[in-house]
């Protein structure tokens, strides 16, 4: 369910709400001011949402420039190229394993 963060300023103070639609009815959930734990927990939750979105963006950006993407997998550095080949590197940046993608 998509919830939109909304800010209201009342007498110079900021208050935050989450606005969403449930069964076609518009509802709001009060989070409190900027220093409230509810609001901070909401921000925690956003940052806790891990997903592949970031790496997909990096893939698109790097591959379009002809560069690989780099990440950590099982404690090794991995260079992933556009053709799907992965090079595993150790801390001395030596290639210890190459995994080619097969169709």
């Amino acid at each position, binding site marked *: 369910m998509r919830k939109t*963060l909304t*800010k209201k*300023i009342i*007498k*110079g*103070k*900021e208050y935050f709400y989450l606005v969403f639609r449930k069964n076609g009815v518009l509802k709001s959930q009060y989070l409190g001011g*900027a*220093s409230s734990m509810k609001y*901070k927990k909401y*921000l*925690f939750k*956003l*940052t*806790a*949402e*891990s*997903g*592949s*979105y*970031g*790496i997909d*963006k*990096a893939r698109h*950006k*790097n591959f379009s*420039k*002809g*560069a*690989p993407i*780099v*990440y*950590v*997998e*099982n*404690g*090794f*550095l991995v*260079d992933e190229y556009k053709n799907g080949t992965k090079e595993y590197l*150790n*801390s001395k*940046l030596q290639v210890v394993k190459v995994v080619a993608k097969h169709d």
Partner: protein
Amino acid sequence: MIEEQPQLIVIAGVPGSGRSTFAKCYKNAFIHSLPLMSFKEGLSSGESFSTILTLAAPEDMVNLQKAHRRGYRITIYYMFTGRLLSMLRARYRQIAEGIPFSESSFKKNYAASYKGLISTYQRCEIVFFIRNQKEFEFLAAYDPKKTSLEVFSKALKVVKTSVDAIK
């Protein structure tokens, strides 16, 4: 009358740590509510804004001091990737863009960025630790009113050591 305090969101980390990707990925959530602009532009506007910094440059520290003095509520999202990983990312990107890569200057910035985060900590409202070794992962949040600088520095060192460890 209570004056509204402007908000400043800083997405911080060394080059290659994924700061700009993070800003793009989460723009629909909270960062989107604030315009992403350079520090100079944002500060001169006097309005709430978000910006991307390394925290390694001395002018970053001066600007954050200025923002703090002007009453900005500062939130930092600090990206942890590890020295080798961020160095490779920065190197590939610069090579792809035809920019020469200096390893020594990268290493200097890498150390300075962590020092910058420690020296800025007490001016912040909250500091989030985000690990970005493959995907964005929330690690912790520190509030200077609740967590001392000493405890924060220790936690920072632990995370730094863990992300730097490569087999």
